[in-house]
């Protein structure tokens, strides 16, 4: 296991946008599952807000279980969407301590939304299972997620 930390720095160059007529998707590549999960979360928040302006001030722990890497990735992303929705926060720093096929442990950092400071992008309703992929590649891991926006 390799702890991974991903934040706003150079995030735009670390994921690809997948074009979709009504919605939007991302593809991310990483060295290991921990980095993959951190990167996917950071990319998702980068779609939602200009995360370079979101200060990683408050921390929240996240510990989740699911059945397989794909369901786990959707569960992780949607838990963060849920937390953002109920706390009125955006997150910009993602620390993933461990990812197994059935669990993810980590923490996220961010601050409450401030309309004067934070420039809003897409309204991500949820990460979907449509064309969802988490796979090993020759030199690491990759994931593809389509969001309902």
């Amino acid at each position, binding site marked *: 296991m390799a702890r991974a930390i991903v934040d706003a720095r150079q995030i735009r160059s670390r994921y690809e946008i997948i074009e979709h007529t009504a919605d939007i998707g991302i593809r991310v590549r990483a060295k290991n599952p921990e980095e993959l999960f951190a990167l996917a979360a950071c990319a998702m928040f980068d779609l939602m807000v200009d995360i370079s302006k979101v200060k990683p001030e408050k921390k929240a722990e996240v510990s989740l279980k699911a059945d397989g890497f794909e369901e786990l990735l959707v569960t992780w992303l949607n838990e963060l969407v849920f937390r953002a929705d109920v706390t009125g926060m955006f997150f910009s720093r993602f620390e993933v301590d461990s990812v197994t096929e059935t669990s993810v442990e980590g923490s996220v950092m961010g601050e409450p939304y401030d309309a004067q400071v934070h420039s809003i992008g*897409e309204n991500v309703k949820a990460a979907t*299972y449509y064309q969802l992929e988490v796979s090993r590649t020759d030199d690491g891991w990759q994931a593809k997620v389509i969001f309902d926006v």
Partner: protein
Amino acid sequence: MSEISIRKVSDYIYEIERTGAMRVPARIYADEEIMNALSNDKSPQQAANVATLPGVVKYSLAMPDIHWGYGFPIGGVAATDPGEGGVISPGGVGYDINCGVRLMRTNLSIQDVRPKLRELVTELFQTIPTGVGAKGAIEKLSVSDQRKLIMKGSQWAVDRGHGNEADVTHAEQGGCLPHADPDKVSEHAMERGLAQVGTLGSGNHFLEVGVVDTIYHPEAARAFGIEEGTVTVLIHCGSRGFGYQICDDYLKVMTRAAEKYKIELPDRQLACAPAESEEGRDYAAAMAAAANYAWANRQVIMHLTRRAFERALGLSPRDLGMRLVYDVCHNMAKYEKHSVNGKERMLWVHRKGATRAFPPGHPDLPADYRSIGQPVLIPGDMGRESYLCVGTKAAMEQTFGSTCHGAGRVLSRSQAIKRSKGRSIKRELEDKNIIVMAHGRATLAEEMPEAYKDVNRVVNVMHSAGISLRVAKLKPVGVIKG
């Protein structure tokens, strides 16, 4: 799945022949231009995927606003027969459960409003929370209040003083599905719902002040309370985070259920369970909870709109005369009676980006519309027309009483943003006498008129096919968005 093959059945119907795992053919309502534009689109394949669902009846259908979705195509309609193992699928409803539209009419004419339009749109924008994190339209609910809301839908809002009884009777299903059960809703969903009642949300959701531009069907227009020049309001939104969470929760349940009941899925987002199974019934009860939440939400927004009009224009409620014409759902599975091969059957009709369009005489219509048919509300993009139409007998016979729900996107969001570079969409709309206010940096660009099909063409397909007939065309004059 094998390559799909499409043949023209009539001027406005195209059929995807049954192949592979498809249990029935798929049919797309479209004209030639719409069909040509779909040649490289994934949505016809999605309509074919839906045709593989257990218990699907007659056809997997798609309306002319069909576009690429997840699971079902947007604009998809499919009915399943629970008596034959028919399934219910959260993927056939979507995350924004009971996303829908309500249309209100007023006593005002455009001349009354035009001189104070900017003040009115500003007042609406300040009164109705829109955009990310929108909350606080009304006091945050307690869990016990939210349980009542889940059981009562629109009526809950009216009982709390947000509207009147006539608002309830003019909503599809009276603004309440009876089988809602708060015990089938997760704590996460309950928590998300508490502060979001009365908020519009973001993306393609909007509130639009419009004016009746053309009447095509005077008798129906009279019954629906509008005439040329009448100022109207359209509200488009749904069940907010409450519904998204319920969909997400139940997709997991349904993935397990599909394995348990040995249902082969061409797309994981189509996860489903037999409607009569425990998992199916639980989803139906949770979906109904979200449906009722959405109705209460639109009811509260409608009432906030009334107050904003009264303040901005200095009118009494009586002078304003804002009344609900109708409220329709776009994303829903409804348990309805339909005739299949001459026999009456109870079916789960999934409408994913499609509108119910019941005919004159249908017992589910409010008494004052029963001889006319169900009002169908079809918003266009924010720069173009919206339509008020009416359901028909042909809809009942061909499309399980369903029609299109909007214009349908043609451009992806990033394509729209690219096209808008160097332009001010707000200014372009103002040049057309439409005042627009929005929060998001990208909302106006992504939602620009060119990102959508021409709603006139979409509505024309369903009118010409005899499924939903034009009653009136509305033109936007003011829009607020997230």
